[in-house]
């Protein structure tokens, strides 16, 4: 057998024997390989030569194919065509639409960046959000944004960030949104420092759920609720406020693109039906709220994997493990509420955030507990008053 020719002439027997000897030899300490080969290939010099050469190659083959991602990642980028232009950045002092003076960048994400700006007209600070040009450049974008913003503005609730205006800066060819400026940090930032104490997590959840309930009541589904767009406001009550309502829908001109892509959705939080191209409903937000609750109480999401998409595959294929697995102290009733919110079938979840809030309130330590205490206090006061009245009545008569 010559080594230069393809080994198509080798019989299956030759081939498997060669590898059998190879594998035995590989498992041996280096010093013992040659003696082993001499024994194993006694009388078959060609085989001995083949395996010896393969063993040499084996030593040098470390790294030959070890890092496929090295060139695959680049190919994947190529596959996608030219990379999108970077997000245009604004600097402090820039003035947008002759009215909003940028003070500083607050953060940036998949859809755009957010800045703190001064509204020169009103002399008030606002949050100024830029939208990625490719989001805004799509057909019908203006109309759709206008419609969604219009809808979103109808929701006035302390737990929903107020949207002010949508406008285009013609010189920059970019759309901007202005909204309520909320001093504080995102829930994602807070969670990076570890899970919340259960009582605090439940308080945040209740507020987020209340905000969602108000929006659902107005017929609006968030569709991209994540810990990144819940803001914990630096005020006395540590109010939790949901931002970016309506934006996912507004930007979703091509349903398929958004669903297949991660252009707007955040795969770590997308509900199974979103991942599978189904329609989003209030139950979709309920799922995301379930994930938030899970994350706040357990300090992690129910599924973790090397990539967000591998985790997404798990969310679609497997039921979520109980949060009590990671947080045994969690009240079983709370755990049940979270698990129900995370049902894969939207029909099995709470119908909307309102129903979830009600369920949360039922559990011990929830609002229901406080209400009972209030009622008890009230009853006591009334009885005391009645007693007082009864006692004073004869004296008065």
């Amino acid at each position, binding site marked *: 057998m010559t*080594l*230069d020719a*393809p*080994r*198509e002439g*080798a019989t299956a027997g030759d*081939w498997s024997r060669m*590898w059998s000897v*190879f*594998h035995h030899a*590989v498992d041996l300490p280096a010093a013992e390989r040659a003696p082993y080969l001499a024994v194993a290939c006694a009388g078959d010099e060609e085989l001995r030569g083949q395996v010896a*050469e*393969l*063993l040499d*190659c*084996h030593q*040098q*083959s470390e790294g*030959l*194919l070890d890092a*496929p*991602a*090295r*060139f*695959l*990642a*680049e*190919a*994947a*980028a*190529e*596959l*996608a*065509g030219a*990379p*999108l232009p970077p997000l245009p950045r604004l600097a402090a002092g820039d003035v947008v639409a002759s009215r909003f003076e940028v003070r500083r960048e607050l953060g940036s994400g*998949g859809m755009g960046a957010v800045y703190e700006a001064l509204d020169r007209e009103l002399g008030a600070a606002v949050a100024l959000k830029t939208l*990625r040009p*490719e989001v805004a450049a799509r057909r019908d974008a203006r109309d759709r944004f206008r419609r969604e913003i219009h809808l979103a503005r109808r929701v006035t609730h302390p737990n929903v960030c107020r949207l002010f205006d949508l406008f285009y800066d013609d010189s920059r060819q970019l759309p901007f949104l202005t909204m309520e400026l909320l001093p504080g940090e995102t829930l994602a930032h807070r969670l990076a420092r570890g899970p919340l104490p259960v009582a605090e997590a439940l308080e945040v959840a209740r507020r987020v759920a209340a905000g969602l309930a108000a929006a659902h009541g107005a017929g609006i589904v968030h569709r991209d609720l994540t810990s990144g767009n819940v803001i914990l406001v630096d005020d006395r009550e540590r109010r939790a406020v949901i931002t970016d309502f309506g934006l996912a829908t507004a930007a979703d001109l091509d349903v*398929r*693109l958004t*669903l*297949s*892509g*991660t*252009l707007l959705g955040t795969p770590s939080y997308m509900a*199974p039906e979103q*991942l*599978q*191209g189904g329609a989003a409903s209030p139950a979709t937000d309920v799922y995301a709220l379930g994930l938030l609750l899970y994350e706040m109480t357990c300090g992690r999401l129910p599924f973790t994997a*090397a*990539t*967000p*998409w*591998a985790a*997404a*595959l798990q969310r*679609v*294929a497997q039921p979520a493990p109980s949060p009590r697995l990671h947080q045994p102290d969690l009240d079983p009733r709370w755990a049940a509420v979270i698990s129900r919110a995370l049902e*894969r079938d939207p029909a099995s979840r709470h119908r909307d955030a309102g129903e979830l809030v009600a369920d949360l309130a039922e559990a011990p330590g929830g609002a229901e507990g406080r209400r009972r205490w209030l009622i008890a206090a009230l009853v006591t006061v009334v009885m005391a008053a009645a007693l007082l009245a009864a006692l004073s009545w004869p004296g008065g008569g």
Partner: protein
Amino acid sequence: MDSGPPTPREVSAILSSVSDGEAPAERLLPLLYDELRKLARARLARERPQSLQPTALVHEAYLRLLGGETQSFANRAHFFAAAAETMRRILIDRARHRRRQKRGGGRFAVELEEGLLTEEPRDVELLAVDRALEGLQRQDPAMAQVVLLRVFAGLTVEEAAEAMGTSPRSVDRSWQAARAWLRREIEREPKG
């Protein structure tokens, strides 16, 4: 002719029509190409090119095309084989294209020799691996399959074992052997 994207059921049907050991259905490749391209494009809107993980793309394509329904083991195997084959074709076409451009520059031989050590070792390595892999495919399809899944679909040993219905240890052994064999074939190739 086609109206709209295929449903998970249609994709399942195509996968089921592929019999074991057969090359992935040609019908599936354009579909996967299209899907992978779209996914990659969407991801690039958020991520830097360096962070694009082909494994993630392949898993994402699986999810998109097949939904979360439980697939038969054979369907899973065929899907990942087809995805790996798609990625392989993309990579090879691209490497060939770049190489043709280099040839046009007229300094090809020098560049190739230097390239092996420094500049663009990937294209040269990739094309050599691919040629050797074709030989391996004829000699030992199962061993070649391990390489395809590991290298071109980016699957881990465990994932490849699952996709092939075999043990991780067996995949690991095949992987070791295939690497040694490919290395030898590449070394034996006449240079230039």
